[in-house]
Structures are given as C-alpha cells and as structure tokens.
C-alpha cells in the first residue's frame, strides 16, 4: 500500500466516521484539551492501522477496536499527556457542533465518566449496539465475562438514573414526551 492510498483511506474514514471518533473521545476525556489530545492519539493509531486492516471486520468495528485500545492506554498516561503536550494541544482539532446541549446526554456522559476505564469501554460498545461476541473480541475477554460486566453496568445505570429527579431515565421519558 502506498502512502497516498493510506492517506486517501484515512481521509475517507475520518470523514465518514467522525461522529464515532467524537463519541469515543467524549467517553474517555472531559476537557476540550484532553479530548483534542486523545483524538490526536486515536487518529495516529488509526492511520498506522490502515496497512494492517484485512477487511475481515467492518470499518467501524475496526476503528472501535483501535480507538478503545488507544483510549485505555491514553487514560493510563493521561497526567503525563497533560504535562508534556499542553501547548501543542492548544490548537483545537475536533469541534462539536454549536448546538444546544442535551441535558440527558450530558447526564449519560457524566455517569460514564464515573466508571472505571473497562466499564466505560463496555458501556460505549453496549450503547453502540455491539453484540457480546463482538465486545469480547474487542476487549479480549470471554463472552461470559462480558455478560457479567454488562449486567452490572446495566444495574448501576438504572439505579443511578432513578436517583436523578430531573435527568433520570423516568424523568427523561417525560422530557422526551413533553420537552419544555
């Protein structure tokens, strides 16, 4: 594969799956600077992975695989990244559309941020509709282990949502039916 081919595929993937990149970045990073830093890391790893991609799984599954691995590693070194690359990250790479913030989505991201990095990854995959088998492949653990963890995550999410008066799942249903 030539560098031009790699460049072309990378730009295509970036254009087609930018929403996916954004969701992953927002799941693991909180501040704009951290999001930018993580996005850069993920983009670099995806770029490097292009020659290795055999096409035996979908592009989005492949990107999730690369991105989650990168995000988990990045989370481990988060403090170091902040210290060494603060200035470079000052130029923002990834910009969210200037839309009105969705409070229910903000609540969901806040809940995800409170989880440990493994549960965060599984929640992301669960919400994106991946099967237990796909999750097991991406995470490198058994399907039964995925099942146990997902059940725990579901319970935790439901309990947390019930504690929320305004943004809870029950509340959000009312919110969706009667948005003010």
């Amino acid at each position, binding site marked *: 594969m030539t560098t031009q081919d790699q460049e072309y595929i990378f*730009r295509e993937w*970036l254009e087609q799956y*930018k*929403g996916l*990149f*954004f*969701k992953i970045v927002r799941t693991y990073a909180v501040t704009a600077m951290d999001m930018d830093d993580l996005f*850069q890391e993920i*983009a*670099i790893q995806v*770029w490097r992975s292009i020659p290795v991609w055999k096409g035996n799984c979908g592009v989005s599954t492949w990107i999730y*695989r*690369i991105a*989650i*691995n990168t995000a*988990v*590693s990045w989370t*481990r070194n988060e403090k170091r990244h902040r210290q060494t690359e603060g200035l*470079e990250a000052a*130029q*923002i*790479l*990834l*910009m*969210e*559309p200037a*839309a009105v913030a*969705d409070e*229910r*989505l903000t*609540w*969901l991201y806040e809940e995800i941020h409170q989880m*440990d*990095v*493994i549960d965060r*990854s599984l929640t992301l995959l*669960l*919400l*994106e*509709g991946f099967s237990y088998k796909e999750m097991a*492949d*991406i*995470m*490198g*653990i058994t399907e039964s*282990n995925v099942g146990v963890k997902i059940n725990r995550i*579901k319970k935790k*999410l*439901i309990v947390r*949502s019930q504690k929320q008066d305004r943004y809870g*799942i029950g509340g*959000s*249903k009312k919110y*969706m039916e009667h948005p003010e």
Partner: protein
Amino acid sequence: MELEEVKNIWSTQNKKMPYSIDTAELHRRILAKKAKAVKVTSLSELVNIVVGLGAGTFTLWTNTTSKQHSFFIYCYSVWMFILAILFIAARIRRKSAGRQYERSVHGELQHGLAVAGYQVKLSKLMRWNNIVIGGLILFGLWETAKPWWATVFIIVVFSLGWYVSGIENKYYQRQKRRLEELRDLLNA
C-alpha cells in the same frame, strides 16, 4: 425497556450536525509524531549498547597499550562487552515479542505488562551492574596503586548511581503495578 431508553439518549448524537475536524492540523501532528517515534526504552537500550561497546573497547585498548596491565580492568572490558551483547539480545527479543499480542484491550495490556516487566528487569540489572562495575574499577585502582581520592571519587559516583537507579526501578515498578491493577479490573 430501560436500557432502550438510555440507548435512545445516546443515539440523539447521531442526529446532530456533522462534527468538524481540522484535518490539515491533524495531518501536521501525525507527521510530527512520526518524526519523534524513538521511544524511551529503545533509546535506553541503544545508549547501553553504545556505552558497553565503547567503554569495553576503550578500556581494553588503554589497558593493553599501557605499561602496567590490570587484570581487573580486563575483567571490566569483558563485562562491558557481555552487557552490550545482552542488550542487543534483549532488544531483538523485545521487538519480536511486540508482534505476538492480539489487537484487543487485553492483548494491549499484556503487551504493556510485558514491556513494563522488561523495564523493571532492565533497571534492576543496571542497578546491580553499578556494584559489579564499581567493584572492578576499585580493584583496578588498587592494583595500579592510584591515589586515595580517586577511590573516594569512584565510591561517591557509584553510590549516587545506585541511589538514582533505585528511584528509576521504583518508578517502573509503580507503572507495572498500575497495569496489573487494570488487568485485574478487566478480568474481574
């Protein structure tokens, strides 16, 4: 039902306006990152290989060309060559081991743990190496009857080396422990 609702909240993001990415800036950063691709472990191996070969050759040459030959300095030269060979072998092993891990979170963690374990071993080896090298140099000084202050100087330098390499070793051990915690979390 309840999970479906959470999924609905999540999927609202898909209906939003497309996100914008500064692709030119991203491309610049990717190229910059590729340019500084030399990693700390790799660099430290190379430094050790060059130092081992350089110090071994230099001491062998000075010892053989001087009038007063020192047995311990010969031992030192041989030891430095052995170290350089050990580092070359370790470097080859580390590079080939990196290709064996699967592309999953577990695989990446296993790889991270292998690298961290390697760094712990390497720093421990370098710590004990201080004593071997320091001892050989001290015996060499004693054999060639150098002034007392040279002995004191060597003792101070290698004591400092022992202390600093202890800090380095603890740093790598902490890194390894963090990875082990993450692995335990994944397997829990």
